[in-house]
Each structure stands twice: as structure tokens, then as C-alpha cells.
């Protein structure tokens, strides 16, 4: 019975497939229009191919900042063991180059095998770089040039970049202009016969913040975020590792941290996990910026001080009513007057140093310190006895904490040349910042709203370097709690990263705070909006989101193809009928 049913099912579907919807697309005024007419249809059989032919930018996301030129002739690539890589690079980089080549090849292989067999071109990719550098930092040159020429039966791609990171980005670009599609029943990988691209990012720090303390994120999910970042040429994963809710990093020197701080013994990151994740990120052009937030946003994990005879390492932990002592439960703040705290922090930093290999940049947090916590703690009041309990006193206390915290950190890493990042706060007000945070060590991450650009100007004037996370555009958690608003991709895209262009603005970060996301739903919150921010940080185009729309939809599809549950931002009909859903009045 079942067999017959299955047979008739196949017959039916087969019939339907042959007879099925077979849209064609035509290129008109830079838009791919689906031909909805009933008869005499003509055009490209796939939207992607039409876009490749029709888009001035070959549908690349983020938009290359240099030249893009191409022919309008399609060629089919031979995919059967015929992609060849040639490396002209220092030996130190060869392993890296092989890894990124492998990653590139994996992008091309999706579910079904290619079956194209007409006029196939052999793809030869020549990668060349001079630098032996294989870890990236703020000064890494990420530019590249890509030239594709075809002749005879060969398509030769010449990629030149100062560093392997430029090479990686160029392979990302190449994977976006190699388009898989089905034509006349056979699946082909196609591109244009001649292409020139020169490209480099506008900002060196292009980040996504994830928060693994409010809710734990499993390693696989973090890797998926890194894949999305790689596809969008974001290069910094800001890992807000700990907060007052939980402490998931397994510290070898201080095993009590996770014992008292993790949600469960399985919801932790071991040093090995961190090491592997950093390696995974490296081959995707992403460096990991670890944040241990303090003096505020520290609670769970720090309760073991008294039991170990070290006194209170943190105060106000779990204190209720929480609204009086912190911005969200549970409360908790470091105890800045306990010298043991700095020893503990030093141990922790040593563990993180062991787990990470690049130690040039670290995030010390430093946001939302609650004075009402400290000034209701007897031992701190005792310490401050004799001083006036003014804001200045507390800022001094906080400033002292920053100094000692940085000392602990410098001791752990053995030098004083790394840069540390802190969030904007009372301590970073232009009037006081110089007293507490020297500008040769501290980078300031601004989460101020767009209206606070004056603050940024003042900080720039004082010689501080900035990372921008405009909270009324780039806080991806907004829109689901309190009176916050959701920022749709166009709002995210059109964030005018602060105006006077100076190299003191290192770049920006979109922030995915974790209160309302976990493994289940983080993809849809982050993607594709983080990709919209990625183009802002890579290309910083003068044009509006409307102008980027069709490329953006195509990039969203790309993310979905790579296994990321990116949100659909528009009816599919609009993506298939470019330009038809714009405003006409």
C-alpha cells in the first residue's frame, strides 16, 4: 500500500516539478524583475544570476570600498576536484592559508552536488601575501585586490593582500560572486568572465557583542555567530563573558568561580573551549575580545571570599530589594577596598592569558556602577571614614579600583603595552576621565545614544580612542523590554558613525545583550541586522539603506544558506520582485 502511495506521490511531484513554477528574471534599471506574465517569458532562470549580471556591485556584502569592474559574460566553473590553489606567501602563513581555502571550498559545497557539464572552466586561485603575520590586531591591514580573468578553459583568480586577513576577506568576496543556481535541470556554479575588485575596510574594529552571563550560549551557537561574522566581514567578537548573573569561565587557579557562579557544571567554558573557539574565530578573520566586567556587574561566582578567609570580594551580592542597589537583579559589585580582590583578579587574568594567545586588547567593563551599593556597605563606609561622602569620593574609589585592576592585569600579562576598553560611565565624563583613565591605555566604548555626540567630540579632543555602540541603533536587545524600541535593519544600517572622521574612532560594535535570548533565539535577533551594521563599519557608504536593500536581501539568503536562522525582513515576494515594494507616492 505504502509503496503505491509513495510511487504516486513521486509521480505527482515529478509531474509538478516539470510543470512547476519557473520564474524568469529580467534586469531593468539595476533591478531584477520577476516576469509574472503568463506567456512568452524570457530572462534569467535564477534571481541570483540576474543579480550578478544586474547589480553594479555584483551583490557583494559589505560593499567593496575600491573599484568593482566586471564583464557581463557568464562562465560555469568546473567543481569536480578542479579548484586549484596556489600560494605565494611566507611559510608561516601556509597553514592559515590552507585553512581558509578549505573554509572557502566548504562554502561552495552545499546540499546537492553540481551537475553542470557544459563549457566548464577550471578555477585556479592564486593567493599571494608578503606578511608573515597570522594574528590580527587594530593595525592589521585587511585590504585586498582580486582579479579574475578567464581564457581558454581556465578562470584564474589573482588575489593580492598585505596580510592573510586580506586574503581571507577576498575569498569571502569570491564566494559571494560564485553563484550556484539551477539551469535546465542542472546545477551550476557560475561567475563572470572578468572581474576586478579592490577593497579595504573603513574601520579596523568591527564587532558583535555576545553576552554569555545572562543566559548561557553553547559553543556551537557561538561558532554560528562567528560564521555569520565571517560572511559579513565583521572582525571582533566581543565576548561579555561574565556578569552578576553567572560566571561561566572555568578558572584553573580559582575553581570556585564557576563552582559558585555557573548555572550548572555543563554550562561553562573551559580554557580548552576558549582556546578552540579563538582558533575557530581566527580562521574566519575574527579576533575575540574578552570582557570581565567590573567593578559593577559582578556577583555570582565571587561569593566564596569569606569562606576562604579572604573577606568579601564582592558586596551587595543578591541584595534585595534589588532596585535600590543595581539596575537589574541580582545585584553585586566588587569590593574595591579588599586587596585580596586584586590578587584574585590577577589569577583570573592569568588563566585568561593562558587560554588566549593574543593579549593586546582586553575589556574591563566598567559600566553602571551603583554608588548606593557601595555607600550602604559598612566596610566601605568604614574605609571612607573621615572623607566627605560626595560623588567625588566614590569616583576616587572607583578610579583607584581601575588603577589596581589594570595593575593586576598588567602583572598577569607581564607588560604594560596592551590596550584596555571600558564602557562610557560617570568615570568617563570629559571633566573627570583624565584623572582616572590614561588615554594611552584606555579605549572608550560608547553606548551613548545618538544625541550624545558632543560627549564623543570631547573625548576625542582629550585624545581617547573610541568604539561606537550607539544604543538607540545598535543595541539588538531593544524592543522587547521596557519602553525600548526595536531597530529594524534600515535603522541599524543608517547609523551615522560619528561625524568628524578621525582614526581615533576605531569602529563600532552591535550589542546582543543576553537577558532575553539564549541558544533558541539568538540567531534571529542578531542576524541579519548585524550584517547591516557590518556594511556601515566596513564601507560606511554615503547612500541610504533603501539603496542597499536588494543586496541586503541577497545577503540574508546567504546567511540562511550557511545555517544561520537569520530573520526574514520582508515578504519573499518583495525580494523576488526587486523595487516593487518601495514607496511610490
Amino acid at each position, binding site marked *: 500500500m505504502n509503496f503505491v502511495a509513495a510511487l504516486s*506521490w513521486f509521480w505527482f*511531484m515529478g509531474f*509538478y*516539478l516539470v510543470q*512547476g*513554477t519557473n*520564474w524568469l528574471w529580467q534586469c531593468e534599471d539595476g533591478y531584477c524583475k520577476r516576469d*509574472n506574465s*503568463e*506567456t512568452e517569458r524570457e530572462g534569467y532562470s535564477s534571481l541570483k544570476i540576474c543579480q550578478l549580471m544586474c547589480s553594479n556591485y555584483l551583490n557583494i556584502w559589505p560593499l567593496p570600498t575600491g573599484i568593482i569592474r566586471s564583464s557581463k559574460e557568464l562562465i560555469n566553473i568546473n567543481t569536480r576536484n578542479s579548484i586549484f590553489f596556489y600560494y605565494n606567501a611566507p611559510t608561516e602563513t601556509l597553514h592559515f592559508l590552507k585553512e581558509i581555502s578549505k573554509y572557502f571550498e566548504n562554502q561552495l559545497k552545499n546540499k546537492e552536488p553540481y551537475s553542470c557539464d557544459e563549457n566548464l572552466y577550471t578555477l585556479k586561485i592564486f593567493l599571494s601575501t608578503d606578511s608573515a603575520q597570522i594574528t590580527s590586531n587594530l593595525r592589521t591591514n585587511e585590504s585586498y585586490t582580486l582579479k579574475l580573468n578567464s581564457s581558454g578553459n581556465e578562470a584564474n583568480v589573482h588575489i593580492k593582500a598585505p596580510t592573510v586577513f586580506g586574503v581571507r576577506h577576498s575569498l569571502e568576496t569570491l564566494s559571494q560572486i560564485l553563484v550556484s543556481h539551477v539551469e535546465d535541470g542542472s546545477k551550476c556554479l557560475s561567475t563572470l568572465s572578468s572581474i576586478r575588485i579592490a577593497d579595504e575596510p573603513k574601520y579596523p574594529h568591527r564587532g558583535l557583542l555576545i553576552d554569555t*552571563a*545572562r*543566559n548561557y550560549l553553547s559553543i556551537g551557537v557561538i561558532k554560528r555567530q562567528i560564521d555569520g561574522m565571517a560572511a559579513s566581514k565583521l572582525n571582533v567578537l566581543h565576548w561579555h563573558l561574565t556578569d552578576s*548573573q*553567572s560566571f561561566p569561565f572555568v578558572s584553573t587557579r580559582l575553581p570556585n568561580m564557576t*563552582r559558585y557562579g*555557573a*548555572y*550548572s*557544571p*555543563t*554550562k561553562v567554558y573551559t580554557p580548552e573551549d576558549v582556546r578552540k573557539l579563538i582558533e575557530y574565530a581566527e580562521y574566519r578573520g575574527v579576533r575575540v575580545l574578552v570582557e570581565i566586567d567590573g567593578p559593577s556587574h559582578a556577583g555570582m561566582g565571587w561569593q566564596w571570599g569569606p569562606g576562604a578567609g579572604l573577606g568579601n570580594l564582592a558586596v551587595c551580592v*543578591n541584595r*534585595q530589594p534589588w532596585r535600590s542597589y543595581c539596575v537589574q*537583579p*541580582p545585584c553585586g559589585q566588587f569590593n574595591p577596598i579588599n586587596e585580596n580582590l586584586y590578587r584574585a583578579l590577577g589569577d583570573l587574568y592569568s588563566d585568561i592569558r593562558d587560554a588566549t594567545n593574543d593579549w593586546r586588547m582586553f575589556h574591563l567593563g566598567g559600566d553602571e556602577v551603583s554608588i548606593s551599593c557601595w555607600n550602604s556597605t559598612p566596610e566601605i563606609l568604614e574605609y571612607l571614614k573621615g572623607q566627605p561622602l560626595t560623588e567625588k569620593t566614590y569616583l576616587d574609589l572607583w578610579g583607584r579600583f581601575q588603577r589596581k585592576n589594570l595593575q593586576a592585569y598588567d602583572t598577569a600579562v607581564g607588560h604594560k603595552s596592551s590596550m584596555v576598553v571600558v564602557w562610557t560611565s560617570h568615570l568617563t565624563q570629559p571633566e573627570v576621565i583624565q584623572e582616572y583613565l590614561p588615554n594611552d591605555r584606555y579605549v572608550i566604548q560608547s553606548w551613548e545614544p545618538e544625541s550624545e555626540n558632543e560627549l564623543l567630540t570631547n573625548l576625542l579632543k582629550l585624545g581617547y580612542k573610541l568604539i561606537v555602540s550607539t544604543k538607540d541603533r545598535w543595541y539588538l536587545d531593544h*524592543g*522587547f523590554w521596557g519602553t525600548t*524600541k*526595536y*531597530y*529594524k535593519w*534600515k535603522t541599524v544600517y543608517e547609523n551615522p558613525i560619528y561625524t568628524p572622521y578621525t582614526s581615533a574612532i576605531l569602529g563600532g560594535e552591535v550589542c546582543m545583550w*543576553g*537577558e*532575553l*535570548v*539564549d541558544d*533558541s*533565539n539568538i*540567531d*534571529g535577533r542578531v542576524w541579519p541586522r548585524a550584517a547591516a551594521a557590518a556594511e556601515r563599519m566596513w564601507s560606511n557608504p554615503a547612500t541610504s539603506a533603501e539603496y542597499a536593500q536588494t543586496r541586503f536581501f541577497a545577503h540574508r539568503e546567504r546567511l*540562511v544558506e550557511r545555517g544561520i*536562522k*537569520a*530573520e*526574514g525582513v*520582508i*515578504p*519573499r*515576494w*518583495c525580494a*523576488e*520582485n526587486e523595487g*516593487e*515594494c*518601495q*514607496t*511610490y*507616492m
Partner: protein
Amino acid sequence: MMFFGRSWIEFEELEERGRCGRIRMKQGELRRALLLITLLCAFLFFYLYWQQSNKYIPAAIYRFSHITTNYKYNNHPHISQSATPPPSRYLEYHLIEASPKQSQISVRCRKPIQPQWTWDCVNKRCERRYADDPLKATSLATCGMLCGSTQLWPQPTGPVTMASKALRFHHRQLAFESASLGASRSLIDEAFAVFNSNVIGLTEAPDYPIEGSDVSEFTVNIAVSNADVVKLKLKTDESYSLVLKASGKDGLRADITAKTFFGARGALETLSQLIWWDPYDRTLKVIKAATVRDKPAFPYRGLMVDTSRNFMSIDSLKRMLVGMAANKLNAFHWHISDSQSFPLIVPSLPLLAKTGSYAPDMTYSPDEVRDLVHFARVRGVRVILEVDTPAHVGNGWSWGPTEGLGELAVCVNERPWSLYCGEPPCGQLNPDNPHVYDVLQKLYGDLIELSGETELFHMGGDEVNLECWSQHLQRTSAAYNYTDLHELWGEFTVKALQRLTAANGGKRFPHVILWSSKLTKRPYVNKYLDKTRVVVQNWGGSQWTDTPELLSDGYKVIISHVDAWYLDCGFGRWRETGEAACDPYRPWQTAYQHRPWQLQRLDKRLILGGEACLWSEQFDEGSLDARLWPRAAAFAERVWSDPRLDAAAYGIQEDVYTRLNTQRNRLVKRGLSAEALWPEWCSQNPGMCL
């Protein structure tokens, strides 16, 4: 089974020893020992892996063979031999769910779980403490079940009593029996199977040891007094009573009594919520004794999903049905087509999908729809197919001229869209073309057949743009004599209703649902729409006058107020002009607190219930789960339990947070990507985040 259980433990112990060994190694020497232990580990790992992969498929079958062979049919034991296993698709569905567990096994091999936290019940709250003695630790799951809250969702409307003790049991001790022999027999069998796999789904891995169980057998008995009811109707009695208590020597027995299968299924759902996995004791537990009497506040508890703006796969819709079942929602309103696309393959009108679907693999075949309808019925859900007309048509309706039927739809893809419709692309049926009504009759016939629904039919009927018709009719219509085009709309609706009757074999459909619109307002509503037949789905704002007016005119309504129960809102405008920029997001609290019959003093007798709506302009199947859950669960308690709003406090009780969070975690266990309610710290510290 036993064998694997044992080897599992041995493995864990060895692994633990291996870890200790490694620590010693670091301190000293003995590289050889390390190698040996690693090899041993590797060997054991492969051994276990091999056993696992070999075993997994049989395990699934085992579950079902277990169910069928353990059935006891009091009256006719021979039936157990012929009890049909569930359809194979269903099996696959659960196998897919089960597979991630294999990877968990390897994780666990690395890190054997040591209880870290323990919870004590203090003043009806579970307080978290560091577990100094892991052997005496109580898990949050166990504490939470025994600490003042019923943990049931939706909260039963009748009396609930629950023991404060738990029993350990093994899912293999479950036995199912039912004396019912009526037409609902096979539905009961399948509901048992669903229940059984839900219980197994709670476990970390199904091969935990049976030793240590407190019971000898756990029997679930269903007695249905009206066993002939196999289709859910508005009048179907969904009440049930559940008695869970000790029986005989060490036996445990759950007696479910219900008028219909649909009540009994709800009871199984409730029973499944009295069962949990204790991760510390590594066993299933169940409340020692309980009684529950329950019935819904409203007969219609719906969820609408739109599969036209963006396509949703059958699998994603099944996940939605799994979630509906878990929350005792009972109507899936499937807004299957719209002007953007027509994904349903209508057997008598294949051109609709052929010219209207996004792609050949973005369609629903008749068999897929029938299968989904059955999948839903087993879970107590009816499926209502809506092909919206006369507006909200377009792509898929342009083949009229080539088939000699003239223009079936007008304004299709017309620009500028903002003149002719609310969102692009435009399109509306052509009321002047008599062929349109023939086509509708064929369509309706197939929709009735596919959904098997004989009581409720949804005709759409919203957002008709008269400008579109007026422009079109100026050009072609002989009937261009209307001073008020609402009359044309009214006449179209009347004709369509006649065709619905014809398609239904001449039998009037008891209830036809229409979206609220100008036509469902005075004076048109009384002129064109028969109040004994038409049900109006109110999607306007809760402060609009629509609902009270309709009720006072005697119309039945389903409430879908946009400001509370539109789950798609809050993601910004996806086009620059046009309405329906329905920001902000409706958090679950808003959905939960919406009780218009109390706040506006509406007559509840004519309110069939409520429906939460999820339009799909701004998401596709990747985000379906997260858009729906847990908000649709919050809505579900509103329409099942309908707790009074406390006008004085106007806040949500702590117990609601606790129960909803537990329910959210159940949904995740059933494979749904439900959104997080809050930081996990708040789950682990009940009451501390409010």
C-alpha cells in the same frame, strides 16, 4: 536495554577514574599509564558509540512496540495485537528530535554531572544554595514541582489537589489502557503514543537504569463516555478529570475520565506536566498523588499563521502544532494564501499554486495538508484553511485569460501599490466575472475536503480596497452603477456564501468566519451578513467600537485585538508607507493581561474565544518558533483558564512567571526554539527578579 543501562554507569565511573588519573599524571610521570587510560577511554567511547548508533533506531521502534504490546484493553484484549502504530512520518519526527541526544552523550562523557546547586522550598519559593553535599542536593525541577505551585499551564479551572511528594519511575513502567471502543479508539492510541514520547523526551537519554524506581507499574487509563466524537466542534466537551494515585502494591495509576477524546487528550497533557526529569537523581519523577478537574473557558482557542508572505515548511508547522497541543490551544487558522503567493496545491485548481507559489518546493501538496490535519487532530487541534478573498489575492490568480475565464483578479501587482492595497503586491478578485464564483466553488470544495472541517469555514474578507474596484469597473463593468461600492462587496460576499453552500453538497456551513472590516460594521453587516451564521473575527484595536457593536447586534465573535494578540508587531515598518506598522512588540505580559470582556464588560456568551495572529511579512520559518513561543502560551492561559485581572494590583502574580517559565522549558524540550523569558538566574532564583 538493561545491559546498556549498566554499561553506561560503568563507563561513567571509568571516565571519572580516568580524569583522576590524568591529574596525578600532571603532577608526576607515568606517561604510559596515561596512554593506557586514554586508549581505554577511546575504546570505551567507541564501544559505547557503536552500541548507541546500533541501538538508536531499534530504540525508537522499541518505544512504540512497547506501547502496543503493553496495551491492556479491558474488554477486548485481542485488539492490542492489531492496534495500529502511528504513521511513519510521526516516527521520523521524533527520531529527528532524539538524535541531538547522541551528541549530549559525548559531552557527558567529558563532564560527569555533579550537582552544583541545591534548592530548598522556603515559603513556597525554591531558594538556591551551593550544594555542599552533592549527594543530598535537590534539583530545581524537583523542588519547583513540590513547592506550592501546580506548575501546570494553562492553569486548570476546576479544583486541583497535589501531593507534596514525588515518586521515581521509569518510562518503561508506563502502561496504557482504555476501555473505549468507539470511533475515537485510534485517536486515543495515537495520543498515548504522543504522550509516551513526550515523557521519553524529558529524559536526558532513554537508557537510564530502572533500578530505584518507587513503583512497579504506572498505568494510565482513559475512559471516554462519548467515544464516537472524532471531530472537534465548538460544542465538543473538552472537560476532563484526572486522578493520580497509588494502586495495589507499589502501583501508580492515573485515571482519566472525559466526555470526549478531546477532553482526555487534554488530561494526558496535564498528566505529562506532573512528570519531570530529575537531572540529579537521573530518573523520571511524578507527583505521588493528584486530582485535577478542568475545562476551558472558551471553546475556540486559536492561533493564526500566515504562510503566504513567507513560506513555512510542513515541519515547522508541525512544531507549531506540538506547541499548541502542549498549551491546549485547539484551532490552527491557516492563512494559507495572500496576494504575495499561493502555496497550496488545490487539486481542482492546480494553476493557483503553479503560477502563485514562490518555487515548486515552496508548496503544500494535498497529501501534506491531510497529513497535517491528522497530526493536528491527534493533538486536539482543528485546522481551518483560509484562502482570503476578495482582497488579498494576486499572485496565482492571473491565469484566467489564458484558460478562457477572463480576468479572475484585478489590480494584480498594480502600481503605485499604495493606491490600490495596503501592502505590495496588490490584487483583488473580480466581482463582475461570473467565472470567479465557479472557481470559488471548486476551491471551497477542495478546502472542505482537505481540512475535513464541517463546522467552521474562514472566508477572509478583510481590507477590500474599493479604489481598485472602482478603477477597474470604470473600464469594463456593466454593473458600474453602484453609488456605494460597499454594496458590490456585500453582494460578492453573499454570492460567495452561496457557492460555499453549493460546494458543501448543498448544506449550509454552520459558521462562516469573516475578518472584521467595513462590511462587518453597521449598516452593511445587518444587510448582508446573517447573524446566525457569520462569525466575525475582530482584529481591530481593543478600544474600537467593533466588538461591542457586533455583540449588541447579536453576532458571534472571535477576538484577535491587534494591540494585544498580534504577535508579528514590533519589528518596525518593512515598507515606508501604509498602515499596519503595529509597533511596539507585544510582550507575553500584554497577551496575558488582555481580558476585554472584563475591562469592556462584553457579553461573554457570544464570544467564541480568541485567536493570536502571526502575520509573516517580517520573518520566515527560521524564526517561527521564537515569534510564537512563549507568548502564544501566555495567550493560551487567557483563553483556557481566563484568570481574573486583579484591578487593584494590576500586576502579574509571581506564580504565573514561575509556571510560564516551566512551560517554556517544556516547549524547548519538545524541540521548539522558544524565546527566553529572562536570564537563567531568574529561573534558578524564583521570585527574585520581580
